[in-house]
């Protein structure tokens, strides 16, 4: 028996380390995705001022700080029992949709996208943003870079900073948007929508036009029948900022629809001794190990899951794209992990359209953006849809608003079980007869890069493919061979 360790040394403290176990025939019999990192935010949150949590928890991730900032801020509204003024809610949602758009764009063009846009078989050196530029043209490439820069600058204007924002306070936001700023925002909103639509078009032209890609997307290696979870509005349309949590079964039936306050009755976390990450699952179905299907509580979140868990998009052009996707991929729910890329571009359109609606809403310049809390704090729960899925913050405090206990259900974590499945399945279906080649390994890697996992963003690599170092060990644990993947 052999053991293969794939160590994505893009970050030594882990964020995904793969161990493949081969039987004597050299077929992969098990693949493990390990997360060997823990930073303990839940612990050191204790003793801190509750109102500081939006800024403290944003430090969990510098790529999606807005997600934690916003979930935390909403938890504070709930904790201090204070309703923000409508203007404040809209300001938050503007910033949040700008963020979703910009973060998705990062993934589509810089991270996951290159696999398709440049092509999985293309030379590694090209499988990055530069490759993308080469493929789609320089002006397009610059368009992407400048678009992203504009979006981030705008969020800096609204939220003080774009990495680790300071906007959120219980009962509102720290500053209103001036009418001057609103003008710029309007302009940007129009550009953003064009950009999002352009992105979908590019994705279609380059990916969906090629049969082999579509086959790849729909291939069994990348398919799991799991539950899907996401936030929906009262019409069961996708919403990033607020709503009820909806869960649909592998067969697409509504399994649960609950307020975030009821999450403890619906979600539990399973612990494995070989990884620091916990595995959330549907409490009412139960933990049945790393298997999919109706009887396994394993669920999935993030773009595809959100689309599966909803009845559509709240904006017209996103809705159109939504219908097209499900039509093409054979109806709801879609179980193909790689369809996340497509779903992501659809969500970009929604984010842009929603952004535009809000940008044209005169309310966003209303100077009244704060209500001061008066209630004695006790417990507060907040939820948002992070780019990488449903994100929940819960705080319990003393009368002075000092955190006694904190619980954070991080988006990527909700996917961790399904990701483990994906890696295991991909490895088992791809690695046979002890033959390991680079292409296979990229396939294995694609299996979980599609989730855009963010265990501290370990897989965000510009080259668009994660460099691997592979060690093949013999039964006795002796190193037999090492394979390097795209090292200079």
């Amino acid at each position, binding site marked *: *028996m052999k*053991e293969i360790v794939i160590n994505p*040394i*893009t*970050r*030594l*403290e*882990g964020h995904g380390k793969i*161990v493949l176990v081969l039987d004597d025939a050299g077929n992969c019999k*098990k693949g*493990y995705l*390990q997360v*060997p990192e*823990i*930073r*303990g935010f*839940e*612990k*050191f949150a204790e*003793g801190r*001022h509750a109102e*500081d949590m939006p*800024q*403290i928890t944003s*430090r969990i991730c*510098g*790529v999606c*700080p807005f997600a934690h900032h916003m979930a935390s801020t909403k938890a*504070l509204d709930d904790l201090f029992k204070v309703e923000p003024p409508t203007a404040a809610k809209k300001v938050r949602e503007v910033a949040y949709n700008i963020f979703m758009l910009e973060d998705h764009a990062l993934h589509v063009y810089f991270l996951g996208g290159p696999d398709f846009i440049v092509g999985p078989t293309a030379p590694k050196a090209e499988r990055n943003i530069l490759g993308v530029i080469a493929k789609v043209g320089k002006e397009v490439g610059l368009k992407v*870079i400048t678009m*992203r820069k504009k979006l*981030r600058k705008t969020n800096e204007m609204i939220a*003080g900073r774009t*990495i*680790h924002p*300071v906007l959120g*306070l*219980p009962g509102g936001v*720290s*500053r209103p948007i001036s009418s001057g700023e609103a003008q710029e925002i309007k302009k940007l909103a129009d550009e953003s929508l064009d950009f999002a639509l352009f992105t979908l078009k590019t994705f279609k032209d380059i990916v969906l036009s090629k049969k082999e890609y579509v086959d790849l997307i729909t291939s069994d290696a990348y398919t799991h029948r799991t539950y899907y979870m996401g936030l929906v509005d009262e019409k069961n349309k996708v919403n990033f900022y607020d709503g009820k949590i909806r869960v649909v079964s592998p067969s697409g039936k509504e399994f649960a629809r609950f307020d975030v306050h009821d*999450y403890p009755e619906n979600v539990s*976390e399973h*612990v494995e*001794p*070989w*990884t620091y990450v*916990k595995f959330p699952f549907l409490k009412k179905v139960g*933990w049945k190990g790393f298997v999919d299907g109706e009887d396994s509580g394993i669920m999935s979140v993030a773009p595809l899951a959100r689309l599966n868990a909803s009845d559509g998009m709240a904006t017209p052009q996103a809705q159109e794209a939504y219908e097209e996707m499900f039509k093409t991929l054979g109806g709801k729910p879609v179980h193909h992990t790689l369809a996340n890329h497509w779903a992501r571009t659809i969500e970009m359109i929604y984010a842009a359209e929603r952004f535009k609606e809000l940008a044209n809403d005169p309310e966003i310049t209303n100077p009244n953006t*704060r209500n*001061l809390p008066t209630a004695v704090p006790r417990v507060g729960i907040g939820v948002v849809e992070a780019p990488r899925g449903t994100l929940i913050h819960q705080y319990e405090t003393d009368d*002075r*608003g*000092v955190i006694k206990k904190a*619980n954070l259900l991080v988006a990527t974590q909700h996917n961790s079980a399904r990701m483990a499945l994906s890696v295991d399945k991909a490895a088992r279906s791809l690695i046979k007869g002890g033959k390991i080649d680079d292409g296979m390994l990229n396939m294995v890697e694609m299996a979980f890069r599609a989730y855009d996992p963010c265990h501290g*963003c370990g897989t*965000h690599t*510009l*080259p668009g493919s994660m*460099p691997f170092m592979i060690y093949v060990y013999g039964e006795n644990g002796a190193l037999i061979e090492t394979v390097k993947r*795209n090292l200079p």
Partner: protein
Amino acid sequence: MEKPKIAMYWCASCGGCEEATVDLAEKILDLTSLADIVFWPVALDFKEEDVEKLPDGSITASLINGGVRMTEHEHMVKLLRKKSKIVVAYGACSAWGGVPGLLNLYGEEELFSRVYREIPTVENPEKVTPQRSIKVDDVELKLPDVLPRLLPIDRVIEVDYYVPGCPPTPEVTWKAVEALLSGTLPPKGSVIGASEKSLCDECPLNETKPDKVLIQDLKRPHQVIPDPEKCLLTQGMLCLGPATRGGCQALCVKARMPCTGCFGPLDRVTDYGAKAASFVASIVDFQDEESIEKVMDRLPDPVGTFYRYTLASSSLGGRARRNKT
């Protein structure tokens, strides 16, 4: 002539510092034209051994972000030190431990029992916790060791320069890069890219201060709607700008939120939290113990407030740990 070689490496960080460098946007291309980036985990890849192979001191400058949390970090920064002429602590975490340094207030055991047992949603009847090494169907799976305390990198290796911020702004980053490439550098141990003065110097509200800055009350951000035209500190908000290095151009204050100190202390300050606490206590305008204590009661978590980013680099480094004697 040969281009200078630059390496960038991340320890226990959130990725914000990487995003910050990505936010250099088109400037990244300028950078690549000025220097060879020989090592940048988000961009390129090296395995430890490949770094080993480099001749000692062959890297012009290594920019390291994130604190030292796991054994691998310790090993890696030592290696980079050996291979680099200049080591730069980039960002709050590597300079002073940053926000994750707050875990130094707790022990590892407290952490594990909270995360894997106490949290109500955890369903863990067998009280399983992650193991350094465990056999799963006769394969040994290993997890890296967590150090008892998170350390700023200068507690593990010698650091030549510091770039402050959580994260450093693109402007600060670029200034620092220029300084490194120009070769005209301040004395070892200096901060580069940021200001020599505290934030007030560049804060638009500094001139609104009265002659005497005194406060009768401390207000937490959610307890007050500040007048945006007046210095936040003089309105009783705990703005740490006076104790914090400038360079960010007062981003938070412009968003009407007090400075929380992410640019850290100035050159002559050895313990940021103690210094910040000192100036705040000094301006509490009461002389009798009772009134003073009343004001202090308004701030239940002074440690988390004054040491938000610098606990790991403070005199005590965290909750006092006694030598086993």
